[in-house]
């Protein structure tokens, strides 16, 4: 397939996009690395006023960290020349990985928030239910809103 026939993003919005996703890429990569380091270190990490919580178990921190890291690398390698479809696909893929991660984390929160716990009643109390959704959040959940920007570009490509 020829490349030149593809619809290019308009050049100015394309450079904004490139900068945006490059920055997002750097942050995401950093989060991914932090995940892996914290897991290797063994202790859970909660940042300052409890916004960010980096899990330390092999599954969420280790494998999950690997996925977040890959998402970051997808963003970084796709940001350059983002108007080109194959490059843009990498950025989209970065966001898809974040959605899988954040989706898993949020679904986990939901399933934990509903039952009443071992000694409690059948269902959780309203307070207990809501408390589950309070910060700190896992990296992917924090990245989620920023990753959604890709949708804008998907719908405004042509």
């Amino acid at each position, binding site marked *: 397939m020829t490349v030149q026939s593809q619809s290019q993003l308009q050049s100015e919005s394309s450079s904004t996009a490139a900068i945006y996703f490059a920055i997002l890429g750097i942050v995401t990569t950093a989060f991914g690395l932090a995940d892996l380091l914290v897991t290797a270190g063994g202790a859970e990490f909660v940042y300052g006023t409890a916004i960010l919580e980096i899990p330390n178990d092999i599954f969420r921190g280790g494998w999950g960290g690997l*996925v977040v890291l*890959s998402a970051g690398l997808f963003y970084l390698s796709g940001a350059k020349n983002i108007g080109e479809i194959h490059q843009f*696909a990498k950025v989209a893929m970065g966001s*898809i990985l974040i959605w*899988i991660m954040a989706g*898993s984390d949020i679904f*986990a929160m*939901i399933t*934990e928030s509903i039952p009443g716990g071992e000694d409690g009643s059948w269902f959780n109390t309203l307070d207990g239910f809501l408390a589950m959704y309070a910060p700190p959040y896992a990296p992917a959940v924090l990245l989620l809103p920023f990753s959604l920007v890709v949708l804008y570009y998907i719908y405004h490509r042509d």
Partner: protein
Amino acid sequence: MTLSLEERWTLIDKISRETVTFGKYEHTLKDAIGELTVKPLTGIPVAIAIMYGFWSAFGSFAGTLMTDGFFVKLFDGYWLPWLQGAFPGQGSWLYSIMVDAGGLGGSEFVLSDTCFEAFGVLTSGIFVAIGVVLPAISIFYLMLALLEDVGYMPRLAVLLDTVLHRVGLHGYAIVPTILSLGCNVPGVAATRILETKKQRFIMMTLLAIFIPCGAQIGIMDKVVPALMGWILLYLIIGYFIFGYILNKVVPGKAPEFLIDVPPYRKPLMRNITKKIWGRITGFFKVALPFVMLGCAIVNVLYLLGVIQWLGDVLAPIFVGWFGVPKETAGPLVAAFLRKDLAVAQLSVINMTDYQRITAVVLVTIYFPCVATFAMMLKEGWKELIAAIGVLIIVVFTYGGLIHLIGIILGVAE
């Protein structure tokens, strides 16, 4: 009249030139993303992410929400105590089989606290089937149906083609393997898409031996969550080692064929619900009776002393060769009917973590469940007998090897 191959293509060429016009085709985002998922460098992270999502959703829904959130409470808190009181004739045979064996084998009758310990058909049997396995397979089949309908499976096949070729299998072998993770029966059926007898035989044997089904994975995740990683690792390594060996010793060819990759499609809600519904009703018709029957048979054998006798007779093998307690004999009998039940029974035997890993791996590889057995028989009795031969060798060598590794690591004796 029939045409030769060339004539036919010439004719098709002519016809299509007259009737088909190929317009300018633009590479879409979907195509570009499709390419990313099959190239190794980008495809492997995607595959890891998908597995992550699969496993996370599985644990959250089946484990956290359904089983631990509601069913354990329901069965241990209400169902078990109620039945223990309402069912007549405590200590009688029927009571032991149906409700609570009260610490089987022990001299004194003690009422059990949990549905895992009770062992009764109406307690453990129903709890395992409804409380643990049903939620597990529901979410499992939902995820599987999504993967199937989106069109990810053929891409995974392309991605894994090189790796699987090492074990004499085509990349497409991943399709039966993944289907087997739901249930081995459709997995065995799906081996028909492999070209040669050799490939089919290797695939079928590996599936029956090394791939745990969704029901079993569900219960494993419930009773030995911390050891899951090790158990799965041992199974995957075994799959490749014995695949490699089988490829070397089984005569025949393992030819190439091109994998046809369909475009990604949006899954149809209607189709997804239809699939899940079909599989859940199938569970009630086939699996549930088998779980209960398995429970009953094992209980009867216990009461007759057969299991204890078997344990004593086989003790040298169990203890000496595999390094697991001789009580494992009971679950191994149950494993023939239902592996999920066997894993549940293993969970109440007193043993070290490493022994538990070994025991669960043994239950998985030791014998296909009856349903799989029947399906393999349908594919050919010669293959089935050969597969059983392989299986016996694998159980002894691999089981011994795992024990040996434990000794070397200093976690077994």
